[in-house]
């Protein structure tokens, strides 16, 4: 981490944290199950996108959705809420 190498003279005078994607690192490593989208069934309703606690589902301009597996924690909300059951949870391989 570049922050750790900074000399104290370069530190802010009080802890000011910078907006950063992955403040906790790649939280995708937390997963036990991973969601997989069957694009054949997906109707692009974008409900999974709005319900994801981690903003790990991105919504493209054409409303198609993509899961960012670097940050998806595998909670399964998207799979549970998908109206067409287009998302299923598969156990992560070791």
């Amino acid at each position: 981490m570049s922050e750790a190498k900074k000399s104290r003279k370069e530190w802010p005078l009080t802890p000011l944290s910078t907006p950063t994607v992955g403040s906790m690192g790649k939280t995708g490593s937390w997963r036990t199950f991973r969601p997989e989208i069957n694009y054949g069934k997906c109707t692009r309703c974008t409900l999974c996108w709005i319900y994801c606690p981690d903003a790990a589902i991105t919504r493209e301009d054409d409303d198609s959705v993509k899961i960012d597996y670097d940050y998806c924690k595998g909670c399964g909300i998207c799979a549970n809420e998908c109206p067409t059951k287009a998302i299923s949870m598969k156990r992560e391989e070791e």
Partner: protein
Amino acid sequence: MPQMTIDTANHIAGYAAKAARVKVVAAYPITPQTTVVEKIADFVESGEMNAEYIRVESEHSAMAACMSAAATGVRTFTATSSHGLALMHEALHWASGSRLPIVMAVVNRAMGAPWSIWPDFSDSLSQRDTGWIQFYCADNQEVFDTIIQAYKLCENERVFLPAMVCLEGFILSHTYAPVNLPDQDKVDQFLPDYKCGWTLDINRPYSHGNLVSPEWYMEFRYMIQEAMENAKQLIPQIDKEYGKHFGREAGGLVEKYKCEDADLIMLTMGTMASDAKIAVDKLRKEGQKVGMGRVRVYRPYPTEEIVKLAQSVQMVSTIDRHISFGMEGFLASETKAALFNQKDRPLVAGFIAGLGGRDVTAETIEKMAQKSLKSMRAGKVEKETEWVDLRE
């Protein structure tokens, strides 16, 4: 034209907040501070002072509101006493840790139980560890001058710490005395626009105060200590600058009276110094070489000044308007600590006086000095700590 007025230290503190062009005041009433915030309310409501006055519902909220306002980018002020200050305790820590240049008037009042509305330093001295700069004033003029100087000090980029300007309840807060109020443009020339080390800014978003692991925390604390050391250097400089600009200085770190050839120095804080001067004069007439030192800045503790002061004396006696239960008065402890490693250090004795507003007269101080002279001549301190004027 600077205006000569006769007013109480509390009202004068209000005048100082106005002169400093404070923009947000968040305050809660408590005896004997109330007339500070009442004065400010008058100023704000009449339009004389362009500021937001948040009539908060507790002192804890007062400090919370000041912190957030200061972080949003405006000069802030508040005032409190005694239990109000105690209620703010965790917020005091947060303010210094956040490096916010808030200035607060503390109208010193004894802590309970039981209730006491009268002055001693137990309230502000109990907060000495919170990272706030602490000034102790001896008269109404000094209250005005110190508040103005405090803003200049706290908003210096080598400091960015909050400060309390302490003044004893009733002795100063409610006593009318002549004060010179300078012209607003002179103050504007002396005090630049508000500056803070960081701001809540939508164009430069940060989160402030996130969890900091052991990997990082200690250095932030060290930086506060560094800022205190910088303050120690800057306080006399700012005082000199103030003197040049306004024609009078406020006393620097330690006010000295007849110390140059003294054998014994009575070291004290606040208004007891005025009575100590009278005692010194009387003793001098009797041929005793006694001097008086007033610690005007308690945090940062003026170690170098005390060491210098003590260099050629045989004894220093401290008068504490405060007791740290289970040990002794803070002024006594810290003076001893400052002098401990000096070669040829003087004897140090501690007196406890004036708790709960008990009057500390020149006669009382003279008696303390006489006791000290006895110890000094015997070459040893009879009692580490002596409580003065205690009923049997």
